[in-house]
Structures are given as C-alpha cells and as structure tokens.
C-alpha cells in the first residue's frame, strides 16, 4: 500500500512539474511578426543558448535580434519580404551544435546568427562549411572564431583582440604604466583571447599572470600573488559575470590604489554591477563599445527605452545584435535574394563602410574575402571608467583610441 501511495505522490509531482515545464515558456521569446512586409518570408536561423552557460549574454543579444527583425519588417522588410526567425537552443553544449544547425537549415534558414558560448561556435564552424550557410556571430570577440580552419562562412562585427592591444598600449603609455599583472579566468573563450591579446601587449612588461576558475568562490590567493609581483596596473581578462566581480571586489580591497583595467564584458553586463561590493568598481577602466556621442547609438537607445522602460542600460550586445541584422539585410539586398547561399556569402563580403551602431560616431564595418571581422580600425572601442556608484561614469579622460586606421 505504501508503494502505491508513493507512486501516486510521484505521479502528481511529475505531472505538476511537467505542466510547469511545458506551459511556462517565458513570454520574452515572442516571435517577430511580419509587419508590413508581404512577400514570401526569408527565413533566418538563430542558434541561441537560452538555458545553458552562455545564456547570460546570449539572451541579451537574442532579444535585440528579435527587436531588429521586427523593426525591419515593420519598415517593409527586405526586398519587400519579411524576415522570419527560427530559433533553436544548443545550451552551449558543443555536442548539440551540429544537430541544432542542421535543424535550423532543415527549417529553411538561409543564414544564421550564432549566439552561444564560444566553444559551441567553434564547434559550429565545420558544420557551417558542410551546410554551406553563411553565419554571423554578433557578439563574438575571439579572433579564432573567424580564423582558419573552416572560416569561409563565418563573420563577426566587433574589434578583436589585436585592436584591443593597440588601445591598451596607448592607455598604458599615457598613464605611465610599464609593468602589469594579469588576472584571468579558465574558460575556453578567455584562454583563446589571452593567447592573442597578451603577446601583443609588448609595450609593457607582464610581471605576473594568474588564473582562477570561472566559478571560483575565492580569488584572494591569485590577488596576493599579483600583489607580490608589484605591478603598476592589473588587467582582468574574463567572460565577466561572477568571476569578474569577485576579482574586482578582491582587487579593490587587497590592492587599493593600483589602477585596474578590464575587457569589454563587465561593461556589457549591467546585472553584474549589482554583484559588486559598494564602490568596488570605482576607477575600473573597461574596453567599452558604446559611445553615446554616436547618433545611431542614440537612436537605438531611444528605441530600447521605448520597449523596455526608462531604466534600460544599453550594452554593446544590443548594438552588435542590431548591426548584425542590418548587415545581413544589406547583404540580402545586394544578393537580390537568399536562394544562392554562395552569392549571399559573397554579398556579405561586399558590405563596405557600414556605419555601426556602436563605437565612435565615424566608426564603420567592412567585410571582405579575407576580412571576416567587420571593425574598421580601433575607434569601435573606447575606454570607459566606472564611477563610485558601480556604474560606468563616462570616457576615461587620460586616453581614448584615435579614430585612424
């Protein structure tokens, strides 16, 4: 009797859980409508990690991709045809990526947005080649994503680490910094980034490089080692999130007075700012991409605030997602359709001088057969300083990247 009671409880619990899981799909995944465009829809695939380890940043961009597509459709679509989005989730699990891309292709997608963890995108490259479909990784910054092998069909927008090194070097020179210490996390994304970035920082001496686990609960040992090496400044390279905040909290209390630099991620994650101890981010300088002097950025901010309320903090992820959709729109118009994916790929490569929604006002994106990375010159970047309220205060007064190639 006890057993049957147990099984009854279990069945009830299971039923309840399944109901929650089945019906509770969150409303934010609404699909864009066709708007005023009326022709046959053009199907675009979105590989979005909405539940895995990359969900924290993928969903920000995914949301803006939908917004941009809605906006395009409302304004008459592409060649009079609406863009239609098909979405699959790979949970940033590389073993699921091939199937997810195949599934998107099977649903008729003619081009893809890859919005997932970088291990997953790396795994995607060979599948893209097999499928022959062009893809854009809107928020990718890891140079290996668009480097050989299998890079014929994959594109990124933002400046990569080579440009970053140039900007950091300018900053270090302007601030009289000759010795830096590096604190880094153990993710695939950052390991690849460090490999490209650190050797390029030849303008300074790297006196110590310390690594911690991305899900670390404590970094005081790493910070103590950095302190022993006595650097003029510390550069934190991480995917952001809890690691970055823990690093800044620890640096802020253990190495007070040492200048701190970071990558872009902390600036793009308003949710993470709340994680920091009061004042822990003050004086931190990060590699931003959002420059409010850019008129296109201002227009996007207005649009986002209309949609999500006054408190919405725009991030580079929003701007890059927006631009990805528009670069693809341009390419489809140039190719005159999407039926020939080879022609579409060449059309992406023929996009030149597209004025970007991020970076400084005259920053543009151009692509080419050997240029799978859109950014033209380093002025897609600007160094932004955090204020005492743990929010970005504005451009760092000491140095800003010049807008020449």
């Amino acid at each position, binding site marked *: 009797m006890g*057993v049957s009671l*147990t099984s009854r*409880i*279990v069945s009830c*619990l299971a039923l309840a*859980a399944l109901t*929650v*899981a089945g019906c*509770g799909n969150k409303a934010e995944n609404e699909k864009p409508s066709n708007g005023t465009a009326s022709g046959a829809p053009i199907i675009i695939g979105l590989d979005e990690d*909405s*539940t*895995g*380890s990359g*969900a*924290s940043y993928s969903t920000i961009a995914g949301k803006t991709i939908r917004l941009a597509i809605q906006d395009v459709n409302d304004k008459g679509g592409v060649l009079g045809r609406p863009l239609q989005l098909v979405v699959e989730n790979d949970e940033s699990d590389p073993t699921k990526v091939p199937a997810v891309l195949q599934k998107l292709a099977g649903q008729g997608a003619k081009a893809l947005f890859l919005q997932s963890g970088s291990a997953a995108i790396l795994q995607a490259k060979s599948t893209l080649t097999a499928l022959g479909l062009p893809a854009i990784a809107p928020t990718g910054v890891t140079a290996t994503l668009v480097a050989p092998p299998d890079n014929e069909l994959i594109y990124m927008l933002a400046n990569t680490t080579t440009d970053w090194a140039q900007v950091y070097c300018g900053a270090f020179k302007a601030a009289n910094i000759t010795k830096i210490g590096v604190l880094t996390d*153990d993710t695939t994304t950052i390991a690849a980034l460090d490999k490209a970035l650190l050797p390029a920082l030849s303008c300074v001496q790297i006196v110590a490089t*310390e*690594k*911690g*686990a991305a*899900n*670390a*609960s*404590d970094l*005081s*040992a*790493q*910070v*103590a*080692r950095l*302190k*022993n090496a006595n650097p003029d400044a510390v550069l934190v390279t991480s995917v952001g*999130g*809890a*690691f970055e*905040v*823990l690093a800044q909290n620890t640096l802020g*209390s*253990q190495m007070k007075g040492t200048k701190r630099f970071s990558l872009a991620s902390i600036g793009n994650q308003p*949710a*993470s700012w*709340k*994680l920091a*101890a009061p004042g822990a981010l003050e004086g931190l300088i990060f590699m931003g991409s959002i420059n409010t002097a850019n008129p296109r950025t201002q227009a996007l901010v207005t649009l986002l605030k209309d949609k999500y309320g006054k408190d919405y903090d725009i991030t580079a992820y929003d701007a890059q997602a927006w631009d990805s959709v528009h670069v693809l729109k341009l390419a489809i118009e140039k190719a005159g359709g999407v039926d020939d994916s080879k022609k579409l790929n060449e059309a992406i490569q023929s996009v030149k001088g597209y004025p970007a929604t991020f970076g400084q006002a005259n920053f543009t994106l151009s692509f080419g057969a050997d240029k799978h990375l859109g950014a033209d010159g380093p002025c897609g970047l600007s160094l932004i300083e955090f204020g005492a309220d743990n929010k970005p205060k504005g451009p760092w007064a000491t140095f800003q990247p010049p807008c020449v190639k």
Partner: protein
Amino acid sequence: MGQLQLWLSALEMGCFFGLLALAYYLVLVGAGFFNFAIGPYAMVGGLCTSYLVLYEDMNVWAAAAVAITAAAALAVVTELVVVRPVQRRSGGGELPALVAVAAVLFAIQQLGGYLFGYTTLPGQNLLTFDPVTVGDTVVQPSALVLLAFTVVAFAGLAVWIRSTRTGRLLRAVGDSTHAAGLLGLPVNRVRLIAFLLSGLLAGITGLLFAPKAGVSSLSGLSWALSGFLAMVVGGTGSVWAPLVGGLLLGAVEVFVPYYFGGQSHVYGLLIVALLFFALKPSGLFVRRVRA
C-alpha cells in the same frame, strides 16, 4: 601583509565548506547516506532569495524565509519520495541510491535554472553594516555573518545531539538502522528530522555565502563536491569533525593557488581526494565504537 587576508579567506571558505559538510554529516549519521543534493539545496537557498528580492521586490528576510523553507522542503521530499522508496527496494545496495541522488541533483539544478533563470545573481545581505578593518585588510559583513552562523550552528547541533532525546536517537539510528527498528525506535521520524535539519542548514549556508561570489543554478554541483570532500577529510568522529575538514579544505583552496598558481587547485583537489580516500577513507576523526 597579504598573508592575513589569505588566512581570512581560507577561514571564510573553510566555514562554508564546514557547514555544508555538517549538513552531509547529519544525513550520514541519521540515515547512513551521502546526500549529494546538499549542494543544490544550498543553491536554492541562495538563488531563490536573490530572485525574490531582485525580481519580486520582496523584503530580504521574507525572501530568505521562503528560500530556506524551499530548501528544507526539497530535502524532505528527497527523503520521502526518492531515497526512502529506493533504499527500501534495493535493500542495502548503495548504487541505486547514488543514482537516485544524482538524478535529484541534476533535476534540482535544472529546475532552479528554469524557475530563477540561468544567470548568476548577486547574493543578498541579511544584515548590512560597515565593513570591519583588521590590520590593513577589510572584512566584509557577509563574511562575519557566515562566521557567526558557523559557530552557532556547530555549537547548537553539538548540544542538540548530546542532550536531547532526538539527538541521541539520531546516532542510535545511524549506528544500526536495523537494530533500532527492532527496538521499536522511530527510525523513519529520525531520518526525516535529519534530512529536514540538513536542508535548513544547507539553505541558510547557501544564502549566507552567496554575497561572496554570487550564485547560479550551476553552483550546486561544485558546492556538493566541496562539502563531500570536507566531510570525508574531517570524518564522522565528532560533530566538530566536518568543521576541521572544511577548514583544511578551505586552506587548500586558498594556499595551493597561492604557492602553485593558476589551475593548480583543480589538480590539488583531485590529489587531496585520492590521498584521503585511499589512505584514510574514514577521515581524520574516527568514532571509536565499542565492540
């Protein structure tokens, strides 16, 4: 100079691991079972509180009460719905229970992500006061609260086990469930109390530790491993053994990377586990049982 800060960090980590290990200890002593779902309970304690405060604008204390209740309820459900039927069916076999608890761990982790989102949320402070300065280092309020709770929890449980009837029953049942059953002791009730207490303890621990580095739905697995290691290192000889194990592990977590750098703590944990499991699987403190 930096050394004091390191010792403080080791102490904070040690208290956290020790509290998780204490939750393991309760279930192990009371039900003879390693409950790996302790980590996910702690995750629920932390994540649920943060979610309610940030997205439902709840008061911190109310949110904490809900989250701790949820963690304790999960523990009770684990015992009533999963562990008890599975153990009854499999007799003494360890494997079915292990698989069941792995499924519980995985399910809570997925459910946590589904309900509270997959992003890392900042931990909420129950008490806010100015950081305390010790020498040239600063101690955050959250660390002090965790420290105080550790002392209270360990002392309280030590007294409870030694001087209440239920506490003594806990050990009796853990020593020999079969004999206790024959003697007419309320085995099931005692087991349930062990699970309930461990759930409460884990929930509070997760909530108090979350301010340090935030909490996400995936935190549970590594917390479960750390707590398990701390308990094995400490042994079950005394209520205080988990704390000793936790402090030792906290020191490893902080000082191994300090002296060897980088990823060494991953290898360090593996080596500690191999050494202890192979050489001293019963831990540092072993209870002498009269033959």
